């Protein structure tokens, strides 16, 4: 058995397709949706914990890829360069998981790495480019 957390990027045309269904029905994989949303660019984004027999897991990944889903392992990490961050807060409404929030007292912006799903939305939108992707 394997169990892995992966991020799936669905192009616009696939957003309404029952792709995950096949994973369950034909490959007997179990899944747990940790996060799902549609980005402003209308790409579907889903963070999934996928569990099943190794053989079926690999087949599942192959199947997803053949449909045009881009898969990103969750090993990639977004970190904040504390020196560059000006604590403006323009990232706060952008982050889909509330990993970036304003401290109501100090008005400083805290970044909770554990909540971050590495969607990278903040990376190019942060004006001083303080959010960095590390592999």
């Amino acid at each position: 058995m394997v169990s892995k957390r992966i991020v799936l990027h669905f192009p616009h045309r696939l957003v309404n397709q029952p792709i995950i269904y096949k994973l369950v029905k034909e490959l007997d994989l179990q899944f747990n949706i940790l996060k799902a949303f549609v980005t402003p660019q209308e790409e579907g984004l889903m963070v999934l914990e996928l569990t099943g027999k190794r053989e079926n897991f690999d087949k599942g990944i192959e199947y997803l890829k053949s449909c045009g889903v881009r898969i990103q392992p969750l090993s990639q990490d977004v970190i904040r360069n504390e020196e560059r961050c000006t604590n403006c807060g323009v990232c706060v409404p952008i982050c889909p998981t509330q990993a970036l929030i304003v401290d109501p007292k100090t008005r400083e912006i805290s970044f909770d790495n554990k909540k971050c799903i590495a969607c990278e939305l903040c990376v190019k939108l942060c004006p001083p480019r303080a959010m960095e992707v590390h592999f």
Partner: protein
Amino acid sequence: MRTIKEINEKIRKGQVVVVTAEEVIDLVEKKGVKKVAQEVDVVTTGTFGPMCSSGAYFNIGHTKPRIKIGGGTCTLNDVPAYTGFAAVDIYMGATAIPDDDPRNKVYPGEFKYGGAHVIEDIVAGKDVRLDATAYGTDCYPRRKLETLLNIKDLNEAVLFNMRNAYQNYNIAVNLSDKPIYTYLGMLKPNLGNANYCSAGQLSPLLKDPYYKTIGIGTKIFLGGGIGFVAWQGTQHNPGVPRRENGTTKVPGGTLSVIGDLKQMKSQYLVGTSMLGYGVTLIVGIGVPIPVLDEEVIQHAAAKDKDIYAPIVDYSQNYPQVIPGSLGEASYEQLKSGKITIQGKEVPTGNLSSYSKAVKISEELKSWIKKGDFELTEPVAKLPAADSGYSFKLLKERPILQKEE
């Protein structure tokens, strides 16, 4: 009540009482305007937001043999500088970008490096690369120059911003069904977010709304060093509608500022890249307000709850200059994290760092208390609310072709 001269005497004697524009709010609530006006000598303000009309000029020193860059070309780290001056004076504007930057060809463009970043690097003490060409004259024969430059070797390095410290600003939203990329950040479709850009109750011109103490010649905190108000900023628009507390309901006055870049710190001058828009410079500014009378304190005590900004659609209204706002919201509401527009709850984001604005007002306060910073008397007033001075759109006129 007191004059700037008296305040400076107190600064010299170490007896001056200084509070920040945030602290004065609580003080007035507790003790009342009259008492606070008696006790407090100076209120310090602060703001830390992006301003595109920023730039810096440099005198790089004469070369041997001499070159006249004026009328030629010049880049710093591949970012073009303006050369239309004498031999070795150049001006780097914040929004300048390298000729080979893809701009918005791949939309939305990233704008990774530009004039604002060059200024930040120079202030940080990093070497920058200069490439210049000239046409050559009898007195300035040289045609080409390639060299590294460092701020410590420049004769002058001066920050000069045509417009800064906007008195209030729009709250930007997007009514269309596509994301848009603006100078106020990315706006999600269908009122997905609302971005604002002001320090609100800490912002200099919102705390001296009628420019009673801030004028041309006022000494200020600029980018971590000392600067001065050089003039009213471009697009200064003092005649706009105001609230009872004097604050403008829409963007109003602005300041043009100048100061020695050599004293500044890169943490207060930050090069930034606005996705799909361009490069701009975040500038830290703090302005001291001398408490000349009770009215000054009354105004300086305006709080986020009583300062409102207009909500403007940036998908149609702003670009097409269609008048109309979607209402207004106070800075207190904005800071709560969401505001209501057309019945919808919309999350808010600030482009101007409030925590840095607090830090600037604190730092200026400590300079004054330590006796390192005395106040100046303005040498001339900024155009006032009733001056008739205003800001208008361009009236385009056709260029008639001459018949052959």
